[in-house]
């Protein structure tokens, strides 16, 4: 419990310093409003932030021992810091680039963009490029079994690595770097297709229900209520159980069933939103006018309602994509999602997860499962940042 006592001591010392800091500020600046009205909590916050920063810098420059637990911690901390600053600098440069290049519209867009959103856009572009050109980027095929298995990442022959496989190979000798790249194609591609399908089904049904109303609306809404009563992941697992039997009998790939199942589950959420948005639009005069002109149902949905409902639906698309992506990754992680030999990040995490126990002795080895999981996390965080920014912009919130 010594670290607990240390923590308490540090907190008490911080509090004392904070009090002194505020007092000194008051004396030195002859009671400027900033210091006069500063509550103790704010002063504590400032000092605590400084303490954390100083601690982090000291930890970062701590010398690394040859072996041992402490050293591995420092190594991981340095990697995290490098990754964080690297992405921050890349996002900053990207935003600078966007501000000076392109049409007036995109320049204006980039000028109002916070750094987090720039980071999100950058990451999404990188993922899109990687997943589209996966075949030509990856050095090896995704199912190709190569010479050596269990090659350590890092490419250092002394540590058991191999310069030809910069991220090492897995248990049966497949190149992890290539599988990561193909994983982008498979996982992201399937998630994208699923989300599009869910939006097509949920969106058109939702708009249809809001236009027609009456018994159709009642029927669809109650059906959606029933489907939404069961938590999404549980329901998906349940249906995948059935689908696995059917896919054996019918000879259809299980992945197709998974796309259909997740699209169905997620289309209920899309339905709710598009029905709510649609009902606000249907009462407008221009819909009345279009109805009186004798336009068909398809025209009403796609030409009149859809353009007016675009903003909330786009934001929902981003969020939905995240959920679908996470659901697919979780299903694969549990072993019922995308099936091997297709490379997929969820399955990779599961397969490589044992390596994490070697982290204390060889930090390189433990990166393999974290890279795949980190790839998933990076994309969802990026999409969330962009959606957050879009919502903030469209709601016009200044607070």
């Amino acid at each position, binding site marked *: 419990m010594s670290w607990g006592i240390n923590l308490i001591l540090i907190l008490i010392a911080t509090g004392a310093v904070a009090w002194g800091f505020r007092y000194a500020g008051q004396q030195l600046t002859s009671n400027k409003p900033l210091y006069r009205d500063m*509550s103790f*909590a*704010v002063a504590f*916050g400032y000092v605590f*932030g400084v303490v954390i920063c100083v601690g982090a810098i000291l930890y970062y420059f701590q010398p690394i021992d040859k072996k041992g*637990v402490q050293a*591995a*911690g420092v190594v*991981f901390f340095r990697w995290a810091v490098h990754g964080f600053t690297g992405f921050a600098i890349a996002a900053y440069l990207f935003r600078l680039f966007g501000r000076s290049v392109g049409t007036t519209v995109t320049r204006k867009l980039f000028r109002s963009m916070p750094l*987090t959103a720039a980071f999100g856009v950058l990451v999404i572009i990188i993922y899109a490029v990687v997943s589209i050109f996966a075949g030509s980027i990856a050095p090896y095929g995704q199912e190709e079994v190569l010479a050596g298995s269990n090659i350590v990442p890092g490419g250092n022959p002394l540590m058991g690595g191999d310069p030809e496989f910069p991220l090492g190979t897995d248990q049966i000798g497949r190149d992890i770097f290539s599988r990561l790249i193909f994983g982008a194609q498979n996982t992201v591609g399937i998630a994208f297709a699923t989300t599009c399908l869910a939006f097509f089904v949920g969106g058109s049904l939702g708009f249809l229900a809001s236009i027609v109303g009456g018994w159709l609306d009642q029927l669809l809404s*109650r059906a959606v209520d*029933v*489907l939404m*009563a*069961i*938590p999404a*992941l*549980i*329901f998906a*697992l*349940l249906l*995948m*159980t*059935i689908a*696995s*039997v059917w896919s054996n009998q019918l000879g259809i790939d299980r992945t197709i069933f998974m796309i259909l199942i997740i699209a169905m589950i997620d289309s209920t959420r899309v339905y709710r939103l598009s029905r709510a948005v649609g009902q606000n639009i249907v009462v407008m005069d221009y819909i009345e006018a279009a109805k009186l002109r004798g336009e068909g149902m398809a025209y009403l949905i796609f030409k009149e309602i859809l353009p007016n409902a675009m903003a909330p639906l786009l934001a929902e698309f981003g969020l939905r994509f*995240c959920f679908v992506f*996470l659901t697919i*990754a*979780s299903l694969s*992680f*549990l*072993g*019922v999602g995308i099936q091997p030999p297709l490379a997929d990040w*969820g399955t990779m*995490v599961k397969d490589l*997860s044992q390596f*994490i*126990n070697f*982290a*204390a002795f060889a930090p390189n080895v*433990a990166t393999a*499962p*974290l890279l795949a*999981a*980190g790839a*998933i*996390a990076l994309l*969802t*965080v990026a*999409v*969330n*940042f962009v959606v*957050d920014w879009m919502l903030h912009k469209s709601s016009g919130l200044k*607070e």
Partner: protein
Amino acid sequence: MVIFAAVNALPGDFAQAILGQGATQEAVTQIRADLGLDQNYFSRYLGWLGNVLTGDLGISFAQMNFATGMGGDQVSLVGVAEQIEPRFRATMFLAGVTALIAVPISIILGVLAALYRNSLFDRVVNITTLSSISSPEFFLAYILILLLAVLNPIFPSLSNVYEGMALGEKLNRTMLPALTLTLVVTAHMMRMTRAAIINLLASPYIEMARLKGISPVRVILRHALPNALAPIINVIALNLAYLITGVVVVEVVFVYPGIGQLFVDSVKIRDIPVVQACCLIFAAAYILLNLMADILSILSNPRLRHPK
């Protein structure tokens, strides 16, 4: 309740799964007859519903002894209810520990973020929670294992809890999964608290309180928080429902003997009674907590409590 129908309309041939590829047609029909799988869905559904209402969840297929006597040996069988019960208690324990950690943290963070909104603190908390909510659970779980179990051995990375363990030991082992779940649910609750309080700050009575010269902390705690309670309680209940149902992945990562683990295992071997029972429990917990959220938000709002 229409949900039962949705849960129950399960085809899925356990008989073929257990006998494998080389099964003869006679053996398959024999096992099907034993398990009552040859009856049509409708009668099976009615029978199951009747049993559930009397508290009998059936017998796990996997527990039946198919090699000798085709399930005739009823004495050694373990019912689904007995199989689920300890696991259900374990999951509730995990959810309880998580709720005890997550709810105070998220409300305090939310209030602080609303108090110092748009400051550096607010932004840091926002970005951190947004990242933690949008990463997959197993990523957070492995990061926590890496930090707290492998690099700094504070907690064990496998939480094999069993009945009759001392409470301290049990807590120690449950800590990592609970922390993972905390990270997952805190973000939502904290953002909701912050948004609800900030929404209220524009109302006239807050202006009035401020003009009276009350300190910002007191304004928020006494005047804003009680009125923001309804949405906060709602989101807490939703997240508790998530805790009970969304534990599947976390339980698998930490090999925690909860109901989620049982569910995944049963899904893999197509043990339909167990899958059904688990689904039923999950759905029931989900619906109950949602119902509770509605009731609590009515209770917390005097205007709804005394309708004119």
